[in-house]
């Protein structure tokens, strides 16, 4: 079963929960995952959940959804305790969210957004200005790298949505890569960390695409909690995440995630996203 099928399996399972060691009923932490990571590896999530459970002292499980909004809804309704979302929804709903942890990618809490095109499509698309009359794939309406950055760049080259032949959301960064590889889209806005991780794992879709443009660095998609949720195990979970680089199992799990660790982070990391969102009509942050 490949990763996509695994993801579909997880999505179809609704509020499915990855099985973990047995703890007392009600003593659990649920982490919501979005397309910011390749969250369709059941065996990996099982190992990671077991690792965290042993350190937190309660059952830690993962809930995957293919849209950011779904995870935010689950967080808002208290069905999950922690959500791994993008920096853009964090800054957009910062008032109701608390920064829980920020992953370290190459030892930095930052990442880039990429514009990719099909392999060998050099003559057609060299940059954002070449997207006129082309099909562009986005990741998610609440994705910084997969939508917000693209809106800023299109505006910068004075391209409006109707100047594109068509645009669509692929419900995940990975799907953006696959849509561009299949030439369903002429170009795609994708999370640079996800694209690099896919390349590291030798996924075919990445091999058929190439990066046209890289953005400036933005705050890495953070883990957040609902403001004032107060789960008694949350602090333990945060400590376990931050301590992952300190043991071999944790380092192995981090290598699988293509990360180097977690940090508490500060909201200031996401200021660039905030400033950017304020320039995009429809971002919900335009004053």
């Amino acid at each position: 079963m490949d990763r996509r099928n695994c993801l579909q399996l997880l999505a179809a399972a609704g509020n499915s929960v990855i099985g973990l060691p047995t703890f007392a009923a009600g003593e659990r932490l649920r982490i919501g995952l979005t397309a910011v990571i390749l969250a369709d590896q059941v065996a990996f999530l099982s190992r990671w959940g077991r690792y965290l459970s042993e350190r937190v002292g309660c059952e830690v499980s993962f809930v995957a959804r293919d849209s950011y909004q779904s995870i935010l809804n689950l967080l808002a309704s208290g069905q999950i305790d922690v959500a791994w979302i993008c920096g853009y929804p964090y800054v957009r709903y910062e008032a109701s969210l608390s920064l829980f942890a920020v992953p370290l990618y190459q030892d930095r809490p930052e990442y880039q957004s990429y514009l990719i095109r099909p392999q060998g499509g050099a003559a057609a698309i060299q940059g954002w200005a070449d997207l006129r009359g082309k099909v562009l794939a986005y990741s998610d309406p609440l994705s910084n790298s997969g939508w917000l950055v693209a809106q800023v760049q299109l505006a910068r080259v004075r391209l409006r949505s109707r100047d594109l032949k068509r645009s669509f959301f692929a419900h995940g960064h990975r799907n953006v890569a696959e849509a561009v590889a299949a030439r369903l889209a002429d170009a795609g806005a994708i999370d640079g960390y996800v694209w690099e991780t896919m390349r590291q794992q030798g996924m075919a879709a990445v091999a058929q695409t190439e990066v046209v443009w890289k953005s400036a660095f933005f705050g890495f998609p953070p883990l957040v909690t609902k403001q004032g949720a107060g789960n008694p195990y949350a602090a333990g979970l945060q400590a376990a995440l931050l301590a992952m680089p300190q043991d071999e199992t944790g380092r192995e799990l981090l290598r699988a995630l293509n990360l180097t660790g977690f940090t508490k982070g500060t909201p200031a990391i996401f200021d660039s996203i905030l400033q950017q969102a304020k320039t995009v009509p429809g971002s919900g942050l335009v004053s």
Partner: protein
Amino acid sequence: MLRRLPYRVQIPLGLSLAVLITALLVTTIAARISARTARQETLATLDRAVVLLIAQARPMLAADDTWRVFSLLRDTAALIPGAESKHARGAVLDADGRVFAASDPGSLGTGLQILGASLHGRKISSAAEITERQQLDQDDGAIVLIDPIRSEDGQTIGFVFVEVEAPVFAPDWAALAKPALIGVLMAVMFLVPIGWWVGNRMTRPVARIVQIIERIGHADAASLHAEVPRTADPEFSRIGDAVHQLIGELQERQKAEERALSAERLAAVGRMTAAVAHEINNPLAGLLTATQTLRLHGDSGPIRQRTVELLERGLQQIRTTVAALLPQARVEDRPLEPGDLDDVVTLVQASASRQDAHLSTRTDIESALRVPSAVLRQVMLNMLLNAIKAAGGDGKVEALLKADGDRVQFCVANSGGAMTSERFMELLTAESGQDPRGFGLWVCHELANHYGGRFELDAMHSGGTRLVFCIPNRERREVQA
């Protein structure tokens, strides 16, 4: 080549070939039917795929979700025949007839105008003109299916577009050949040996009948009758009846031949008896005349002496003649002497007198005579009596006994009618032995052959008939056959 083979091989071989040819024919026909129905099956599969795509794509199209429609097309591409080999492709078009998402975006790019545009040189109806499913058949056998996708309230929100190239409908001969080959191999492995066995079984009665026919005339008829196979098959029954009839007829023929042989043996005995009677009867007339002479002139010493010697030599000739005719009786015979001709003349004189025939003889002896006297006396007696009869009344008979170192020759000419060669040959045949005159000549002919000589008609003689008897002048009595 088949016709040169034995019947017993032809039938099994023919049956085996028939099985093989039948298998090939059935396979070929099945392959053609399969190829013909393949297009219908492909169209039916396409129909099901289109129905499925319409149902699944409707909510995605309504939600303007290109990625999910693409995922649907990609995941269901296997349902479209030829999609995996890039000979077919499917797409969902938006309400304006542009590609919303395609299973192969490389050939049907997103946003490409399909409806109302030209495809492979043919204009496709516009989105507004298509209200129901359309099937566009291309000249090369390819097809294009366009089916509207409607919302629940009947509004056209898009179209399913499926294009299948001609190679998809082409029969997959390689795939068809595999079961065909298996069928033929099965036929060869199982049916051909069975055909051979059945053929052998069919020809077995024929083989037995052939063996029986080959033994007809050599084996016992009753056992052959018993060996003729009995079968319920009407054709074989007729053959069996014919063989029974053949055996019966041959049996009858053998009996007839045995009867004919017996009759022939009886006839041969009759001819032998006639020959003995003839050879004995010839000198008897002269001997009876001698006894008459002895009775009338027996008082005269010289006459009595001469007559008694004549009687003795005549009787001796009869004895020798009988001995010659009976192989088991062997008697010593003396060589011929010139006086023997006088004795023979004396013996036939009475006959000549009764015919008023004039008989004259002549001898020309240059060498000692070594031929047996009884044989020459018998020959001379027969030839003279025949000549006297042939000469008729007042006829002339001239005899010549001639001898040299190599051969002895006795010639008799008569003044009667000239005998033709054909008549002479008729007289020499065994079948004419019933003719007393001819019988004597036949005996001469047989003796000439027996002693390595000849007996012939002098064709050069004129004024009557002249016969010549000639044998080698030596002591050997007979030549080896």
